[in-house]
């Protein structure tokens, strides 16, 4: 049990989402977190459903999908490195999930529900802005990458 709690706190502490949090804050998040197990083919998050939790990958392999035109399934990304996370947008921007996440292999996730996070922010008010800034940083990084991709595709097609 203790080893498992250590593993959870390491997972949280090493995540860019929880960067700069204090030890006591990490410990409380560990208490509020929940371990979830998924079998291959099971969906963790469904595109269009309301986002109500953040997930960190403990072990396993998942993939991110969106519905393309005509219901075509498009795979956007693989989630397979420990500490990888998804669902974090829900915290900054509550609304429908933008993609479906499905387990490809036996997967173990650490889940933090928005409800649990509300409790946490009630106790550690300063942590909220830290986590939001971390999320914004992650989003900014992804946006920078997407913009590089847009620019490279656009300049390829204009020079072709």
């Amino acid at each position, binding site marked *: 049990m203790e080893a498992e709690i250590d593993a959870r706190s390491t997972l949280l502490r090493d995540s860019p989402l929880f960067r700069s949090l204090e030890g006591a804050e990490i410990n409380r998040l560990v208490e509020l977190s929940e371990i979830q197990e998924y079998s291959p083919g099971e969906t963790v998050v469904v595109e269009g459903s309301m986002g109500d939790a953040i997930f960190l990958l403990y072990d396993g392999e998942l993939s991110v999908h969106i519905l*393309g035109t005509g219901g075509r399934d*498009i795979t*956007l990304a693989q989630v397979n490195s420990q500490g990888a996370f998804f669902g974090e*947008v829900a915290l*900054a*921007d509550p609304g429908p999930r*933008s993609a479906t996440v499905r387990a490809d292999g036996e997967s173990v996730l650490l889940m933090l529900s928005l409800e649990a996070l509300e409790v946490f922010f009630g106790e550690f008010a*300063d942590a*909220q*802005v830290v986590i*939001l*800034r971390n*999320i*914004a*940083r992650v*989003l*900014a*990084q*992804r*946006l*920078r990458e*997407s*913009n*590089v*991709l*847009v*620019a490279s*595709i*656009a*300049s*390829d*097609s204009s*020079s*072709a």
Partner: protein
Amino acid sequence: MSPELEVLSSSPLMHGMGEEELGSILSTMERRIYEVGDRIVEEGRPSDCLFILADGVVDVVKGEGDQAVLLKTLDERGDFFGEMALIDILPRSANVYASGETRILAFPKQVLTTLFSRVPRVQMTLVLNIARNLSLRLREADTLILELSRGS
């Protein structure tokens, strides 16, 4: 209400901010005027300011010369750019050019940081609005990538 306060309160970046908080943010402002073709933000340079459009039009452009790609045009009062400066310390990710005579409200990061330590709620609201906007733009960018790659 002063014209600048009107610009601020119309900006999505200030959503949820009280009048007193808007006033405190306004006290950190610098007014700037740019002419057609002026570069307001230079890709690769350190990020030190947040900008809100008071009047005019700006183009957000990635790369230069033959490689330049227009990412976005901002033309609404209250539109903002350079906000990533407030959340990371990476260099500017794109160029921003004035495409007409443009009036800008600039907010130096250093002065804003001092304000944040005095009024933490201002930081919380700003960061939340920035995160929301980033998530929206990320969705837009990803849709665009899908469309572009389908077209090619």
